[in-house]
């Protein structure tokens, strides 16, 4: 009589030892799409050929429609070169004030994540991302226009722009804070534009992980054109009030050139759309477990 019971129990144990999801690699995930991606005009996006040798970079020219491939600029765990993933090599050098400021932010992703309804991420109440978060979160297809005295960058997320003055002016001494600060740039060689920015509004987060910054923040961007089709961006954060030393937030982030006919999607935070989403689904998702 006990033999069937033993057999059942052994089968049960064996089933439970079969690889039901325990490792990250086993988690359900979406398959790769078999349908081509579409630009903002609904036209298929032509992928850049990986092995194609590109023409040389033009000098003093970073203009173009630059795509961040494969969602690499989304950065939901925070700045791509230093995500908040708990790994020792990504631990930031906070000052005591920086740590205290960090505790006040409640992000929706990463090691300190909370439920959507509990997050105080200002972007989700449609505040501007500001700078440098526009580089460190949702960095998507980025259009760069060059004029004789300035470089203008048009960002997809929030449909916002920045002006980088290249006419030799100095950064203002004690400017009124702005969401996107004040930027000046100069060419350090034929293919590298170095940009300095200060005067950012303290209300912004540095990135989606809720890293803080003070009004003393200074950011360096290095735009380096490798060849005709490839641009790299490196972003360094320097804020002695919050961090004991400068740290690299983006390290040679890779952009690929798209045709000038590429239409960029419109991506705008609309309070009415957020409200609609919360009514349809967001509130249900954030309710606590009922079972």
């Amino acid at each position, binding site marked *: 009589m*006990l*033999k069937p*019971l*033993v057999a059942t*129990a*052994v089968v*049960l*144990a064996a*089933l*439970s030892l079969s690889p039901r*999801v*325990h490792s*990250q690699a086993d*988690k*359900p*995930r*979406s*398959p*790769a*799409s*078999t*349908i081509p*991606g*579409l*630009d*903002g005009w609904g036209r298929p*996006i032509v992928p850049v050929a990986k092995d194609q040798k590109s023409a040389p970079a033009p000098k003093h020219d970073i203009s173009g429609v630059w795509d961040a491939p494969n*969602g690499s600029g*989304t950065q*939901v*765990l925070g700045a791509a070169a230093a995500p908040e993933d*708990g790994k020792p090599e990504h631990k*930031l050098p906070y000052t005591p004030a920086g740590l205290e400021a*960090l505790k006040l932010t409640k992000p*929706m*992703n*990463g*090691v*300190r*994540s*909370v*439920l*959507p309804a509990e997050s105080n991420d200002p972007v989700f109440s449609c505040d501007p991302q500001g700078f440098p978060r526009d580089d460190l979160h949702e960095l998507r297809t980025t259009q760069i226009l060059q004029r004789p005295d300035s470089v203008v960058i048009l960002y997809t997320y929030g449909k916002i722009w920045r002006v980088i003055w290249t006419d030799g002016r100095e950064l203002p001494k004690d400017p009124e804070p702005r969401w996107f600060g004040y930027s000046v740039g100069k060419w350090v060689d034929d293919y590298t534009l170095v940009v300095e920015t200060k005067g950012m509004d303290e209300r912004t987060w540095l990135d989606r992980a809720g890293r803080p910054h003070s009004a003393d923040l200074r950011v360096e961007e290095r735009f380096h054109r490798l060849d005709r089709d490839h641009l790299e961006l490196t972003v360094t954060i320097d804020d002695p009030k919050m961090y004991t030393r400068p740290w690299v937030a983006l390290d040679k982030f890779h952009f690929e050139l798209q045709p000038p006919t590429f239409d960029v*999607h419109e*991506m*705008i*935070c*609309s309070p009415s*759309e*957020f409200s609609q*989403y919360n009514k*349809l*689904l967001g509130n*249900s*998702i*954030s*309710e*606590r*477990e*009922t079972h």
Partner: protein
Amino acid sequence: MKSKFLAIFALGLGVLIFSPPLTAHHGYAAYETDRKVTVKGTVTEWFWANPHCVLQLDVTDEHGQVVHWGAETENPTTMSRNGWTKDSIKPGDQITITVLPVKNGKPVGRIIEVVLSNGQKLAGRVNPASEVKPEDPPK
């Protein structure tokens, strides 16, 4: 006697291992990331809008009751990269969706994949393995 002991031991082992894993919350904080659910039903609404596109689906369960499911994807700009459009799904369509179910037990999910009535597959952008288990806050 020995058989009885083995039976109890094996049962206990099975129960122990079947206990839900103590995974911590991720960016997918509100969703179960270790299993997926597949349902088939009739689309009642498809909202192609920020911050996430929302699908509403009527699903008839095994008891003949209609359950109103809600499911979300990423934003339209992201979904366009997978070939989705505002016209990919329409009210009245008979579709099958596979989702990460929400933890609170409601009929809500995050879309892993949609299969249309003509067999075409629309891939979501779900990858919970890309996010990590939270650990202690930085000291």
